[in-house]
């Protein structure tokens, strides 16, 4: 079958693939320790389910998927969990991440495996569960959990399954060698996907610079109905959106997924991993990685256990660190450089590139943009990289979004062709980060505003309720007063009020009367304003009550050994001082009368 369409632009960088296809895939030796980051995929990091010191078997699950979009992690070999700690991870930031560190015991003892040759009889859900439990993620470089991607939903019918065997980036030959050597496994994996997804068409898109792999696939697919489509070598035809356009002439809508147009795209390495998981019961614990670059004596592909330090792998390939200018994880177009070789190989590490200075010279200083438009000619998404550059420099985020910045796939074709060596992709990445940051800030500000307004509302409501209660009390007090005045008028000749007798008792009476008045009882309420001595007596009694309470709390705090004890002690002290002052005041008022 011939490709149906082509995408706009594209470039032809020198391929540099011949160096690493001379020798077959070799098995990498066991390193001294395996470092497994918990986040090797898109989605929430996995949650460890082992503890340091625990013995694990090869293929045993050591971290579970945290949410729906997540993947579990398995021990690549038998050994001991030596730690769960922060270690350098392969990421452009050069930072660290939480990793499970395993010290292999060298015996490679397997955990019980559930191989299943007759997977066609299994229900779909069970197959998907197996794929999920095996920790399979997209091995093409993105690392999206495969079980989620392949799990079809009723509203999205997949009519075309595309297997991405393009491997368009220079230097990388992992998929090429995998197809040459394990074409049968590739086809088996595709059959499992066919069973899961039930597409009408299955296409394998492969670039024409891989004749041996094409031949192997054609031999393996035979009459199965899987079509091997040879596409012209053009970077970046391995990009999911571009490959879909080439093979089906459909375009993935902006902001949408291939599933929106009925297409499912999986990498050829992922298909093999699915075969391994379902048919042989092996979870994802190793992958094929290309080690290449002129500073390696023998560039080749290795089947390497996940978690192997890159330095170990480079040593196997005869790496000369002194000649190596920089270390790149991934290819020269979309890979990122890491500061040192201590980082581990993860599920998405398809290539380790160790070039010399002559091979990949450092970029010359950027010159001014001459508006030549070569970048717009090369862009596979038909964007205007030049305009995006100007807007990125001036920070005009609204114009960036109007020019569809988020449709940029960061393939690097524009930076490659720029005669002025402007690092265009970096501008776009930085701008995307700034826009997302501003978006988050706006959302937070909006939330803060809503909370503020809710609080204002609440306080207004409470104030209104208090006001209503106060008015009710005032009305009740007025009514009580009126009743009392009537009662007094009747009772006055018989019982004169004796304020001087027993001040404490009088105070108690008054307090009781006040409470009675509050509840609406009209009996014996005092309507006179309290005299200074009465006020002082009230104050003393209140303070005494508070002091008792504070002392009690302080004792409790001291008994419980709490840190608040000191604070409470000072509170007690303050209250004691106030009580002394109040008592003194009471004496003065008593003396005055």
């Amino acid at each position, binding site marked *: 079958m011939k490709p149906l369409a082509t995408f706009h632009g594209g470039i032809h960088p020198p391929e540099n693939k011949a160096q690493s296809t001379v020798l077959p895939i070799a098995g990498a030796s066991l390193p001294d320790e395996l470092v497994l980051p918990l986040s090797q995929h898109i989605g929430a990091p996995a949650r460890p389910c082992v503890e340091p010191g625990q013995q694990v078997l090869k293929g045993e699950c050591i971290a579970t998927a945290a949410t729906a979009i997540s993947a579990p992690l398995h021990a690549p070999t038998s050994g001991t969990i030596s730690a769960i700690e922060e270690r350098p991870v392969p990421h452009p930031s050069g930072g660290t991440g939480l990793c499970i560190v395993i010290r292999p015991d060298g015996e490679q003892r397997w955990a019980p495996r559930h191989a299943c040759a007759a997977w066609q009889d299994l229900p779909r859900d069970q197959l998907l569960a197996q794929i999920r439990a095996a920790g399979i993620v997209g091995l093409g470089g993105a690392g999206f959990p495969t079980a989620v991607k392949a799990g079809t939903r009723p509203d999205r019918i997949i009519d075309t399954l595309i297997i991405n065997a393009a491997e368009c980036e220079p230097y990388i030959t992992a998929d090429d060698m995998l197809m040459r050597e394990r074409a049968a496994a590739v086809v088996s994996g595709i059959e499992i996907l066919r069973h899961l997804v039930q597409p009408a068409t299955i296409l394998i898109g492969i670039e024409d610079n891989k004749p041996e792999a094409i031949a192997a696939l054609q031999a393996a697919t035979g009459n199965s109905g899987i079509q091997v489509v040879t596409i012209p070598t053009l970077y970046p035809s391995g990009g999911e959106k571009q490959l879909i356009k080439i093979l089906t002439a459909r375009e993935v809508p902006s902001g949408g997924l291939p599933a929106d147009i009925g297409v499912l795209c999986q990498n050829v390495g992922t298909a093999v991993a699915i075969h391994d998981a379902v048919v042989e019961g092996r979870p994802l614990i190793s992958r094929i990685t290309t080690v290449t670059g002129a500073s390696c004596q023998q560039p080749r592909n290795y089947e390497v256990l996940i978690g192997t330090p890159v330095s170990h792998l480079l040593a196997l390939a005869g790496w000369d660190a002194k000649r190596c200018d920089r270390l790149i994880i991934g290819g020269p177009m979309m890979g990122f450089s890491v500061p040192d070789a201590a980082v581990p190989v993860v599920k998405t590490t398809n290539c380790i590139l160790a070039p010399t200075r002559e091979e990949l010279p450092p970029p010359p200083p950027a010159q001014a943009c001459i508006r030549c438009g070569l970048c717009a000619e090369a862009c596979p998404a038909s964007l205007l990289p030049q305009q995006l550059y100007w807007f990125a420099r001036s920070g005009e985020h609204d114009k960036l979004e109007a020019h569809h910045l988020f449709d940029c796939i960061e393939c690097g074709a524009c930076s490659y062709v720029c005669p002025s060596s402007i690092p265009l992709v970096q501008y776009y990445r930085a701008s995307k980060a700034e826009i997302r940051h501003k978006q988050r800030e706006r959302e*937070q500000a909006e939330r803060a505003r809503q909370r*503020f307004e809710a609080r204002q509302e609440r306080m207004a409501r409470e104030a209104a309720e208090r006001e209503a209660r106060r008015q009710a009390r005032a009305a009740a007090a007025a009514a009580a007063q009126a009743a009392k005045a009537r009662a007094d008028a009747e009772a006055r000749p018989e019982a004169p009020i004796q304020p001087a007798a027993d001040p404490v008792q009088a105070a108690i009476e008054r307090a009781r009367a006040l409470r009675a008045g509050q509840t609406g009882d009209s009996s014996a309420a005092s309507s006179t304003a309290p005299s200074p001595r009465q006020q002082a007596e009230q104050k003393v009694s209140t303070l005494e009550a508070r002091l008792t309470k504070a002392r009690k709390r302080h004792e409790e705090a001291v008994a419980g050994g709490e840190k*608040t004890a000191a604070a409470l002690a000072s509170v007690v002290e303050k209250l004691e001082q106030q009580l002394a002052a109040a008592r003194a005041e009471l004496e003065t008022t008593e003396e005055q009368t």
Partner: protein
Amino acid sequence: MIDLLAQHPLIAASGALLLLGALFGAVLGYAAVRFRVEGNPIVDDIENLLPQTQCGQCGYPGCRPYAEAIAEGEAINRCPPGGEDTINALAELLNVEPEPLDGEVNPVKMVAYIREAECIGCTKCLQACPVDAIVGAARFMHTVMADECTGCDLCVEPCPVDCIEMRPVATPWQWQRPLPPEQLIATDRHSSEVPA
């Protein structure tokens, strides 16, 4: 009439101008009435540009009062949490000159943190927080919900045991913009050092 106009071009010209003036005046007057916008929507636009910290550093009890004041003519440079970006955005919206910030700005975002061991549960900070970001009740432990805290600083003062501190929030790594070509200085032109 036509003859009159033809013979006296001055009258023709002034008449034409008067007529045009009247016509455009009528159109504008109609538009002023027909398309009048009630209320002062500019206040909403201003408020949307403010950071909603509700901290009061501008001198107004919240962001909405400050937005209303700005609509009345208040200076736009009084919001430290908003920083330069907010001033520039406000300047653009209101078509005025942006001014330097009136106050100092802390570039690192901070959130409040209560040292729970020292908290006595007095609820003073709860009452001070303008966005209700502190969870607690009288004599129960108080704690700050870091996601909701705007870093306004209003809770630190009222605490009688001084157990609230402002801690910087760690910003996740992100790609930085490359230095523009014009920042190349003479001594760098032969530079071929590549930072890793």
